[in-house]
């Protein structure tokens, strides 16, 4: 295989998020933050959320990682901001399904925003962990059961 296949994963929008991540900062007044490690490479992501009533008012992340983990974290913050907690949990679960190659409803895809593009991860199974790290942290932060 040539490197062409890489284009399926490293799309312009992915590179864009990785190089200019959204909401990459800590939240001093976060109601909760969760840090997770990718044990095989040592990358870590910390996700901060500020909830009010049942809604995620603000969400952000810090940490180091590869293109995929940074882009995915950035996309995650876009997708989950302003969602109610149950919907956020559902959205995380949809993302996990997507990375495992499941086809989502167009509604679910829409809710994922840019992250919907990461369906191509199913072709790169070794990188799924990189992509889901931030989403697992987010899900844990809003109190969804881990994995």
């Amino acid at each position, binding site marked *: *295989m*040539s*490197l062409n*296949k*890489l284009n399926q*994963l*490293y799309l*312009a929008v992915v*590179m864009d998020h990785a*190089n200019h991540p959204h909401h990459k900062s800590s939240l001093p007044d976060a109601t909760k933050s969760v840090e997770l490690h990718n044990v*095989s*490479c*040592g*990358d870590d992501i910390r996700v901060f959320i500020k909830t009010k009533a049942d809604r995620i008012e603000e969400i952000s992340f810090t940490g*180091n*990682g*590869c*293109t*995929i*983990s940074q882009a995915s974290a950035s996309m995650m913050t876009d997708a989950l901001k302003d969602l109610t907690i149950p919907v956020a949990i559902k959205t995380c679960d949809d993302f996990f399904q997507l990375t495992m190659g499941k086809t989502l409803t167009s509604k679910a895809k829409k809710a994922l925003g840019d992250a919907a593009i990461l369906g191509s991860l199913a072709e*790169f199974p*070794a*990188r799924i962990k*990189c992509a889901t790290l931030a989403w697992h942290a987010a899900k844990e932060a809003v109190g969804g059961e881990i994995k």
Partner: protein
Amino acid sequence: MDKKFENVIKDFPILSQKINDEPLLYLDNAATSQTPNPVLNEMVSFYQSENANVHRGVYTLANEATTAYENVREQVAEFIHAPNAKSIVYTRSTTESLNLVASSFGDLVVHESDEILITIMEHHSNLIPWQQLAKRKHAKLKYVELADDQTLDIADFKRKLTERTKIVAVTQMSNVLGVTNPIKEITRLAHQQHAYVVVDAAQSVAHQSIDVQDLDVDFLAFSGHKMLGPTGIGVLFGKAELLDEMNPVQFGGEMIEAVSRTQAKWQSAPWKFEAGTQNIGGVIGLGAAITYISKLKMTWIEATEHKLLTYLLPQLVQIKGLTIYGPQTVAEHGSIVAFNLANLHPHDVATGLDMLGVEVRAGHHCAQPLMTTLGVESTVRASLSFYNSLADMDRFVYDVKMVKEFFNRES
């Protein structure tokens, strides 16, 4: 390539498969080596003709299995030039061997405010067991740092070695920096201070010949799966008189001499450490791996790998934006090369190489404190074996450049 090489390659069918439609180029030998057919055949033949539990039956089959199992112990002793088979304990892995020393021997000799001296280039398996021991005993864990050329700083070792040092634990070959440490000198100095020396030979055992008596080490650990053998079998060499002093850490099965309702008496070493049914098939495979290596000759393996590295390293050094960790010169470098490409994350690089059929590690290589010292989170790592060729090296260099270009174009 010569005839010998061609024959060797035939023993490793896995190497002729395709990965992502490209011929596999396996460069993760430091994580685990591939297992040649003669080793697999020996294991299968054991299961198909001699399989029985060892040290248990008086019948013919059990006796054959026991003899085979104990003969490999002799073979291992000879392989590392141990004085006799009694100093060879079977374990699951290097990790288990090191844990056994740290928890059984460590508990005997390390006391409050004693010091344990390890190096900053240790694999977690030769680091956390000592960290835990230090915690348990309120002892002090000290690290020998790197010199400017990223070899071990022997001056720092001398400074940190004191009369309080009870154990020096050090790797013979770093799984990241590729350097080989001067074990004989370290042992000589440590023994002057009456400290015991524990050597992690996980990376060295398949690449250089080891003489535990010449090195005068007290303990030495390695794994079968990094030396052409199967997974699940490891070795702990220990000086017989030290093994004798140590208490077993697992109990049951054939490690006992007698058991009553209220107490138990252990067998002598090494058997007292081998509780329950051991990985008998794994032992047979380990023996076959040693036979395989002996037939190839360790000097040939060393020469072949040195030739590969001599060819590869200067080419890598010339790639712009590529940083090599550890010494930059072939003279001080074993067949492991860790590197990074500027602004690229090792995972992305490894995925790129994987698309081209080249299998390398990306990560912290179970050496996080070393990563911190090197100022990185992780690196790419290519580790060579005698079954790689010069053409493989050319291809690898080419592919690294391709990957670099791909990502530089994108960003």
